C-alpha cells in the first residue's frame, strides 16, 4: 500500500525541482513584467509604490520617435540578415553536399563563431572596423582607396553590423541545411538523376521543395534569434551613430538602465514579445498548412496509383 502511493508520487518528486525553478525564475518574472508595463516605475521604488498608469506606457511609445525608429531598425536588421544568411547558407549547403574529405573539419570550424561569446565577436569586428588600425581600412588604403567610415556613418554602421551577423550566423543555416540534405531520400534523388535532371533542376524542383519544412523551421529559429541580438551591436556601436543601429533589445536595456523608466521598458518588452509571438504563430500555421496540403496530395497519389 505504502509503496504504491510512493510510486504515484515519484513523477512529481522528479519534476518538482525543475518546475519550481521555472516558476520562480521564468514564469513569475514574465508575468511580473506584464504587470509592470502598466506602471510608472523607476528602479529606486518598490513595485508597490509605483503609480498605476494603465495603457499610458503603450500609447506614449507610439508617439516616441526613438521607439519607432528602433523598431524600424530592428525590422531592417532582422529581415536583411535572415534573407542574406538563408540564401548564402542554402546555396553553400547545396554546393558542398558531397562526400569530400575535410567536410567535418569545415563544419567544426564553422561552429566557432556561434560558440564564442557575442561580446568577443563584437570586439573582433570593432577592431577590424577600426578607422585607422582596422584591417578593412588598412587594406583599402594600401590599394589606394579611401577609408570607409564603417561604424561612424549611420548607413555604413547598419551595413557593418549586418556583415558581422552574417559572418556569425550563416554557418548555422549551412549546418541545418546540410543535415536536411543528407537526410533526403536517396531514391528520389537517384530517380531524378536517372531522368536526366541537371544539377539546377535537381536543386530547385527536388531538393528545395523536399527541404521546405526544415527551411521554414530554420528561418523561424534564425528570425527569433535575430530579434534577440544585442551584445554584438552593443560592443560595436552601442546603438549609434545617432539611433542608426539601436535595435529594440538595446533600446529596452537603455530605457531600463539609463533613462530609469522600468514601466516603459516593460511595455517595450511586451511589444517585442508580441511581435515574436506573431512570427512564431504564423510560421507554425504555415507549416501545418503545408503538411496538410502535402498529406492531401499524397492521398491523391495513393488513390490514383494501382
Amino acid at each position, binding site marked *: 500500500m505504502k509503496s504504491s502511493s510512493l510510486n504515484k508520487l515519484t513523477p512529481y518528486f522528479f519534476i518538482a525541482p525543475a518546475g519550481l525553478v521555472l516558476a520562480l525564475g521564468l514564469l513569475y518574472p514574465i508575468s511580473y513584467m506584464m504587470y509592470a508595463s502598466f506602471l510608472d516605475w523607476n528602479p529606486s521604488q518598490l513595485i508597490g509604490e509605483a503609480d498605476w498608469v494603465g495603457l499610458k506606457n503603450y500609447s506614449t511609445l507610439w508617439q516616441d520617435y526613438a521607439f519607432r525608429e528602433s523598431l524600424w531598425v530592428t525590422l531592417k536588421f532582422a529581415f536583411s540578415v535572415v534573407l542574406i544568411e538563408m540564401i548564402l547558407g542554402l546555396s553553400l549547403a547545396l554546393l558542398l553536399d558531397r562526400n569530400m574529405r575535410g567536410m567535418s573539419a569545415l563544419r567544426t570550424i564553422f561552429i566557432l563563431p556561434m560558440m564564442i561569446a557575442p561580446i568577443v565577436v563584437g570586439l573582433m569586428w570593432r577592431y577590424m572596423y577600426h578607422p585607422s588600425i582596422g*584591417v578593412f581600412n*588598412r587594406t583599402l588604403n594600401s590599394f589606394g582607396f579611401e577609408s570607409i567610415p564603417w561604424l561612424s556613418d549611420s548607413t555604413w554602421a547598419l551595413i557593418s553590423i549586418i556583415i558581422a551577423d552574417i559572418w556569425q550566423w550563416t554557418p548555422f543555416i549551412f549546418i541545418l541545411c546540410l543535415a536536411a540534405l543528407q537526410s533526403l531520400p536517396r531514391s528520389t534523388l537517384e530517380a531524378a538523376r536517372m531522368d536526366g535532371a541537371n544539377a539546377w533542376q535537381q536543386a530547385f524542383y527536388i531538393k528545395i521543395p523536399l527541404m521546405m519544412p526544415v527551411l521554414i523551421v530554420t528561418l523561424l529559429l534564425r528570425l527569433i534569434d535575430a530579434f534577440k541580438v544585442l551584445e554584438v551591436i552593443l560592443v560595436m556601436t552601442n546603438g549609434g551613430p545617432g539611433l542608426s543601429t539601436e535595435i529594440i533589445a538595446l533600446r529596452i536595456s537603455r530605457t531600463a538602465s539609463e533613462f530609469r523608466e522600468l514601466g516603459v521598458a516593460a511595455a517595450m518588452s511586451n511589444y517585442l514579445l508580441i511581435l515574436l509571438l506573431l512570427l512564431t504563430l504564423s510560421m507554425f500555421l504555415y507549416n501545418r498548412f503545408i503538411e496538410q496540403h502535402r498529406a492531401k496530395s499524397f492521398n491523391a497519389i495513393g488513390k490514383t496509383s494501382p
Partner: protein
Amino acid sequence: MTKKTVGRPKNPAFYALMVALLVMSLGPIIMMVTTSLKLNVDIMSDASSLWFSPTLENYETVLCDVLWYEPVNVDYCNPTFSRALGNSIFIALMSTAITLILGCMAAYALVRFKFMGRGTISMTSLMMRMVPPAVLLVPVFGIWTFNYGLDGTFAGIVLVYVAMNLPFVIWILQSFIVQVPMQLEEAAKMDGANPLQIFFLVVLPVITPGLAAAAIFTFRIAWNEFLLANALLNRDTRTVPVTIVNSLTEYDIDWGVIMATGMLLAIPPIIFTFVASKQIITGMTAGAVKG
C-alpha cells in the same frame, strides 16, 4: 558538365571554395589571437601586421593577480579581471551542474510517466527560446532586488541561468531518453532497483551524449551572457563579459589587453567545439531536422 561533377568528389574548385570559407570564418579569430600577442607599438604601426615579435605581455597584464611570478612589465596590477574570471568559472559550472540535474530528472519523469506530450514540451522550449534576455531584464532586476534579495549574489544569477536553460535541456534530454529501451529498466526493476537507482545506474549512462550536448549549451550561455549579469551582479561578483564591456571606452582602448581578455573568454568554448563538435551539431540540428 555539371553531370560529370555530381558524385565525383575530387574537384579542385570545391576545395578552393572550402579553403576560402575556412579563411573567412577563421580570419577574425586569428586576428584576435595575433592582436592579443602584440605590443601596442606593433598594433598601431603602419608596417605589415604579419611581422611582429609575439609577446605574452598582454596576458600577463590581465592575469597579473593569479600568476605565480611577478610579471616585470606590469607596473600596476588590476585584480578586476582575475576576480571576474573566477566568478565566471564558478557561475558557469554551478549553472551547468544544476540545470543538468534538474533537467535530467524532469525529462525522465516526463518520458516514463507520460506526463505531457512531446509536442507540449517542444512548444514550451520554442516559446522560451523566443523570450529575449532583454525582456527578462526589467522583471528579473525588480524581483531579484526587492522580492528575493538576491541582487549581487551568485545564487541570483545562477537561478536565472538555470531557469533560462531548463526548457531547452529538458527537451533535448527527452529525445535521448525516449530511445532508452524499456526492457533495460524493467530488468533492473526485476532485480529490485528503486526508481532512483534505475535512473542513476541504468538511464544516465546511456544518455551521456545528450548530457554532453546539454552541458555544452548551458555552459556556453552562462559563460557568455552579458545583459543580465550586468544588471544583477555587483563589483565583487561581476563576470568577464561585464568587465570587458566596462573597459570599452569611446576613444582610448588598450587593444592588446582587451583582445587578450577576449581570448581568455573565448578559449573554453573553442575547446568544447573541437572536443565535442558532433554533440554540438546534434544539439543544434535536433530542433529543426527531427522536429
